[in-house]
């Protein structure tokens, strides 16, 4: 692995991990086209046979501000970002100023700021780290081609493509697809590709600069041999994955109010509405979105809304309403750092306890968290099934990291999901036999009573927001209040017994596998998007023979409420050390675990600066917890 191969320059005793990763970072102002270069190169690499992990950082601005798009790739499964990169492409001088030290020794910096003079300290850095700086006269080339500045992105992508030693035709095909509907631009784009390649060729001809005017040679960027398995994979963001999952689950109506990082889901579903035939409403606020979805689910459709923390605060009263109506609903809560507006375009796991506790009164709900593009798809049908089976609200947690990371994703298996609607009555004969009091019958042993839909030819009932008796008539008697509360809360017990325990991930023959019967010496515990980086970091630690403790495992919580702790308690008892890994200040899962079973996980790795865990960073943090000998 590159982290240690890099360190190996200084310490040859360190074993090199079999996984080789390479990373490229494109930096510039928001709106300069960073994303389009990133997406083109990512798709190209994936089609060439590489697993790509794309990560974006950007400020809350439409244009301007410093933004980046990083691609980490390998011929093996890769699910994290490094802090240090092999190639830096800087679209403006801010990149040269701010990101120079993101480069690894031997790295390359490519930029188009002609005449840029690196300050002495930077020059020294370039020299000692053997970094090659290449400036491309982008403006001149574009002027010669009579092309608009935006086309520079394709030219730069082509240069990168050439530097990676990749096939020009693959890139041409890709750009062709992208501009299929803009024929007039296609030709110019192709010219830009040629220019990017020929510039690279010219540079490459200078083997050894003899005079100081000669440009330096471009070092070869050696990618590991490609693996064709990745070619047919999808490149999806977590938002796209979740959108596809929702459509797969049978969601027919989406209502939402724009709020990062939930907005990409709104856009994705909106952009496909003509294909899916879905009803889409951009609501006037999050309360409206939640109410529209509540009404649509009450009527019997599958409907979805998504928001971030602030919007979810506004939805909480509606969540409480759904609790007493026993109305199945699904809310996506895409986390970002708070409080208040906080860090709008950054990531966090700070809303777990809110998701579990928000909204007045006591009622049953389910909280689950997706961790990547696989979960984001698979868990949408699961969430709707749980909502309908238990007649509860299900809150699906995601975060900015998942919402916007570009994942290399195996095409989805669509045979797994089934439609489970629980005690929903639709059969004409059964409908005719229903009595109004069946709807909220407090005698239901599992707390779940029969449900049928408005418009069904049957006895009617009231979905009553006041405390009510079995048919929805307001009933404030002590006996009824107790009975109905107990009925609704029984569902939580029923649900808890049905939910799966967290999954134990262990390394087996160099491969990750879920091994729920195993035991480990070092147990990491986490949830959500940290899983990806934890797995990559543990893989790194596992393969490093210098470290004595080989039996590392990760316990991943998908279902966070009601919380199951049996497996955790058993594993923690046997493990020499348990470590909590979360992206919040309090260690919220830890708080919850202690609340539910008394287990206190004292070792914590917590991050709350808006950035996700980077793999090299996490390796060091875990190593420090394990008191492994330091390197160099």
């Amino acid at each position, binding site marked *: 692995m590159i982290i240690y191969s890099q360190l190996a320059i200084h310490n040859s005793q360190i074993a090199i991990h079999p996984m080789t990763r390479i990373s490229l970072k494109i930096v510039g102002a928001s709106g300069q086209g960073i994303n389009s270069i990133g997406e083109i190169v990512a798709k190209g690499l994936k089609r060439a046979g590489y697993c790509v992990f794309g990560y974006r950082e950007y400020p809350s601005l439409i244009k301007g501000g410093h933004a980046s798009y990083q691609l980490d790739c390998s011929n093996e499964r890769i699910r994290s970002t490094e802090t240090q990169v092999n190639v830096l492409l800087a679209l403006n001088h801010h990149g040269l100023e701010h990101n120079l030290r993101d480069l690894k020794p031997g790295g390359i910096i490519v930029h188009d700021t002609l005449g840029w003079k690196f300050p002495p300290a930077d020059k020294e850095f370039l020299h000692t780290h053997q970094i090659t700086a290449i400036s491309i006269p982008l403006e001149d080339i574009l002027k010669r081609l009579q092309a608009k500045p935006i086309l520079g992105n394709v030219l730069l992508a082509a240069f990168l493509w050439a530097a990676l030693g990749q096939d020009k035709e693959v890139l041409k095909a890709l750009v062709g697809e992208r501009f299929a509907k803009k024929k007039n631009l296609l030709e110019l784009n192709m010219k830009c590709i040629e220019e990017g390649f020929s510039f690279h060729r010219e540079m490459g001809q200078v083997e050894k600069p003899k005079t100081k005017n000669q440009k330096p040679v471009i070092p070869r960027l050696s990618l590991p041999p490609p693996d064709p398995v990745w070619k047919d*994979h*999808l*490149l*999806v963001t977590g938002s*796209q994955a979740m959108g*596809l999952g929702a*459509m*797969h689950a*049978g969601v*027919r*109506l989406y209502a939402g109010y724009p709020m990062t990082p939930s907005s990409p889901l709104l856009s994705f579903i909106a952009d*496909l*509405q*003509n*294909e*899916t*035939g*879905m*009803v*889409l409403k951009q609501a*006037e*606020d999050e*309360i*409206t*979105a939640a*109410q*529209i*979805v*509540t*009404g*649509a*689910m*009450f*009527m*019997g*459709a599958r*409907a979805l809304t998504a928001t971030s923390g602030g919007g979810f605060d506004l939805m909480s*009263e*509606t969540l409480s*309403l759904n609790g007493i109506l026993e109305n199945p609903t699904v809310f996506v809560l895409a986390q970002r750092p708070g409080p208040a507006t906080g860090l709008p375009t950054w990531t966090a796991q700070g809303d777990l306890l809110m998701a579990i506790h928000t909204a007045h009164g006591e009622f049953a709900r389910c909280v689950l968290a997706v961790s990547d593009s696989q979960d984001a798809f698979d868990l949408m*049908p699961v969430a709707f099934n749980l909502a309908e089976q238990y007649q509860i609200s299900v809150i699906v947690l995601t975060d900015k990291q998942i919402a916007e990371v570009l994942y290399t994703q195996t*095409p989805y298996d669509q045979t797994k999901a*089934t*439609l489970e609607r629980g005690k929903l009555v639709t059969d004409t004969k059964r409908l005719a036999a229903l009595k109004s009091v069946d709807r909220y019958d407090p005698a239901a042993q599992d707390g779940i009573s029969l449900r049928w*839909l*408005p*418009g*069904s*030819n*049957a006895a*009617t*009932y*009231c*979905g*009553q927001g*006041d405390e*009510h008796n079995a048919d*929805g*008539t*307001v009933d404030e008697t002590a006996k009824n209040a107790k009975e109905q509360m107990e009925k609704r809360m029984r569902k939580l017990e029923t649900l808890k017994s049905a939910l799966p325990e967290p999954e134990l991930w262990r390394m087996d023959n160099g491969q990750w596998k879920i091994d729920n019967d195993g035991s480990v010496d070092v147990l990491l515990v986490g949830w959500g998007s940290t899983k990806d980086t934890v797995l990559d970091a543990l893989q790194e630690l596992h393969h490093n023979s210098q470290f004595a403790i080989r039996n590392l495992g990760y316990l991943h919580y998908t279902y966070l409420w009601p919380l199951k702790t049996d497996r955790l308690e058993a594993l923690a008892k046997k493990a020499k050390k348990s470590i909590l890994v979360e992206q919040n200040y309090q260690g919220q899962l830890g708080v919850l675990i202690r609340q539910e079973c008394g287990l206190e996980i004292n070792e914590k790795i917590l991050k709350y600066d808006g950035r996700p865990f980077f793999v090299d960073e996490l390796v060091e943090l875990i190593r420090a917890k394990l008191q492994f000998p330091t390197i160099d």
Partner: protein
Amino acid sequence: MPISLDTTGPGPSMKDYHCQTQCTWCDACGDYGVWTAIKRALVELKLAPWQVLLCYDVGCHGNMSDKLLGYRAHGLHGRVLPFAAGAKLANMQVPVIAFGGDGASFSEGVGHLVHAIRSNYPITFILHNNANYGLTLGQASALTWQDQPMNASPNGIPEHTLQSMEFVFALEPTFVARGFSGNIPQLTEIFKAAILHQKHGFAFVDVLQACPTYNHFATHEYFLEHCYDVNAEGHDPTNLERGRAIAIDTSKRISTGILYEREDVPSFYDRLVPRKNVTTTCVEEVSIKDVSALWGDLV
């Protein structure tokens, strides 16, 4: 199941909507009139209780939710409109009627009212307008007159009274009517028209009603003296300018009846491009879908 709004043929009776729960409103409350008229209107439209969804806001009027039959929802204060809109968009075959008070509709839920009218959702909204918050014991609403001592406003309200009809007309509604809870036959006709308007969009019905406990100005007697039937006087509801003028000016007489209606503006649902030529409802379309055709661009 499709439900026809056809009014011919045998249908339900008032008894079908009857419910055992006893009314809890004050004597002479205007809610009794609305309660009777809505049942009457549904019966005359030949709609059985199982064919409709009645959605209630929170307030005295919301206590109607368990005083009649039909599929009903009694939700949160101020939020009845988006709930009703969501329900309707999910199943366009079911007539959806939303009820709300002036307190909720012009304060806590005023944003929803604005967007419901401009969205032209295919639902009916019946405003129980007694110009105060009755259930919380007589505080001023946005529609309470100035200079009236109210609970929590012993000196009267310092704010302007919101001119509700000017407000509503500014939002380019497609149906505006006003009724009086003491004139049940007329109210029934208005409700019927407002329910039938669902095929064109959002119907706004302002029902002036007495609050014998807290509103000592606009009493039942006051309404009896001041209300007149515009349609009986030959008002043409397609005349926007005239409709608006008689809706707003209540200085001498109060216009009731169908003040304004247009049928040429498509409803929110009818404007949805993806739903053009779709004959099924969202409710009927729930199933596990093959989405592989949608990820083609992502490979």
